């Protein structure tokens, strides 16, 4: 059995971010980068499948050479090998899905596990697009995944606005991980040492023959307005008036 897991290099969600002077991106100087937390959950799910069903776990990332760092983290957690599709340009969800279709065609995994979204742009589209382009089933926002004994289908519980929904999908399929799917393991010391020797293949994006021009262009980035202090009101009437006239929520 083979599982393909996506790994995106994103700024540390715990870091204090600043919009850069041009207003088109964030200041990256001195910034720490990590594996996208939802992708970490996807890696963990892949490792669980490795433990239970002897699946081969293959990681794939798209980006500059620095993304090797995040792939090594995934390898240190226990994945078997990694692929880095090298590109110096950014990739929007469309480009990511197109690139992943090519990787899928070469690797032919039984499941593609992805984080539901990346915490830098929160697009939540690449998984859905990939499934569509490949013509395979998708189960997004997964909070539970159960593979059938014959490994030909999976029951996936999805977190949707109304609650939980369970779907059964044929494999191969795309599954995107939500927060409560699992708790990712730490990379152990022996894991970190072993990661050094695991195969990491770099593929220049030009070799894949995909359309890499992003369709989404970042126009402007601005910080959210500073939180104003709260106020105390004396009566319920005053509260209702304020909610109606000032906050304009009634």
């Amino acid at each position, binding site marked *: 059995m083979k599982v393909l897991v996506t790994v995106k290099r994103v700024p540390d969600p715990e870091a204090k971010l600043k919009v850069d002077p041009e207003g088109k991106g964030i200041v990256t100087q001195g910034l720490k980068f990590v594996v996208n937390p939802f992708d970490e959950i996807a890696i963990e799910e892949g490792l669980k499948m490795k433990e239970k069903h002897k699946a081969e776990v293959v990681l794939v990332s798209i980006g500059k050479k620095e993304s090797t*760092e995040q792939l090594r983290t995934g390898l*240190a957690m226990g994945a078997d090998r990694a692929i880095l599709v090298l590109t110096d340009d950014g990739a929007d969800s469309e480009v990511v899905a197109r690139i992943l279709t090519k990787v899928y065609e070469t690797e032919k995994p039984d499941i593609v596990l992805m984080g539901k979204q990346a915490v830098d742009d929160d697009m939540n589209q690449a998984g859905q697009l990939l499934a569509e382009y490949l013509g395979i089933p998708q189960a997004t926002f997964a909070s539970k995944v159960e593979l059938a004994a014959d490994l030909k289908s999976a029951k996936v519980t999805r977190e949707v606005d109304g609650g939980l929904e369970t779907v059964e999908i044929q494999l191969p399929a795309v599954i995107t991980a939500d927060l409560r799917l699992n708790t990712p393991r730490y*990379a152990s*010391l022996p894991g970190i*040492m072993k990661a050094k020797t695991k195969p990491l293949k770099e593929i220049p994006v030009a070799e894949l023959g995909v359309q890499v021009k992003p369709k989404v262009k970042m126009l402007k980035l601005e910080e959210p307005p500073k939180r104003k202090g709260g106020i105390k009101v004396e009566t319920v009437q005053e509260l209702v008036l304020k909610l109606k006239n000032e906050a304009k929520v009634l």
Partner: protein
Amino acid sequence: MDFSLTEEQKALQDTARKFAREVMAPVARKHDETGEQPVDVLDKAFELGFLTEGIPVEYGGSGLSRLDAMILTEELGAGCAGMTTSIMATTLGLTPIVIGGTDEQKKLFLTPLTEKRSLVAFCLTEPDAGSDPLASTTTVKKVGNDYVINGIKRFISNGAVSELYTVFATVDKSKGAKGFCALAVPKGTPGLSAGKEEDKLGHRASNTTEVIFEDVKVPANYMLGKEGEGFKIAMATLDRTRPAVAALAVGLARAAMEAAIEYSKMRKQFGMPIGMFQAIQFMIADMGMQIEAARLLTCLSAWLIDQGLKNSLQSSYAKCFASDVAMKATTDAVQIFGGYGYTKEYPVEKYMRDAKLLQIYEGTNEIQRVVIARELLKGI
């Protein structure tokens, strides 16, 4: 000179930092108050390979270089000094075997430590032998094919909770250092027991007790090296593990500095954040400088070990300097937090209590200075 971290070192730092933040720090206050053994933390530390970092790979350990171990220990030190002491003391306890043991002894004693979560205790100090280890009165006597050990050790980290004890005893007090011996004693050996637990100022998550040897009998092949080689093994062990104390100090000082910086940005008096006042700024500037210097000294002392070079002088520099830095940084952090810093609601009073021990254990800073001066004034 390449000061950059390798990919593996960055990964090690990340995992250790996450562990300190997510596993150690949330329960640090509780274990500081109750003194209860942080079993979950130690179990997880074992799972991740932290407890076996000092055991070579061929015996089942993580086999970190000493420089790697500094990176790990600094991160753990920022999480909780007491828990880090329990982990570090395990490496300290097993190092005599790494240094003085035969291949057979390493398989016998070290490999089991990699199969099940185990702590180790280094038994050198006695009620009347601290800075002066040769004032030891613990004796070892050859009886047939065994050695029999008698004596009391004091202030032993992991004293009541270890799977293995490395103990130093003399076969003939009149011979001084030439009579000193090192032995390995497994838990459960009849006559081996832990005495009272110390009620300490800091590092309260770490178990510290007396260890009592009453006619403790072990096979002759449990002696590390030959009779009379124990002092050399003890000193070589301390040289090798002293940099870790410095690393712990760097982590502790850093945690105090980070807390002080955050507080200085938030706390307002006289209409502005207190970080705008030079008195606060100068304390923080001093913290920054001293921590960076301590870190570099620590890494140097570890790097020398990895290069196979003598490091006694540098490891004394590092331990003495870094622990003094930690004491100052943590005390200033309490000062910056003011009245709030004096309460248990904020983490800095624990940092200050924890820092004090670093100037005392693993060779007091007074002894470090004696050793340093002796080396520098050689030939006097």
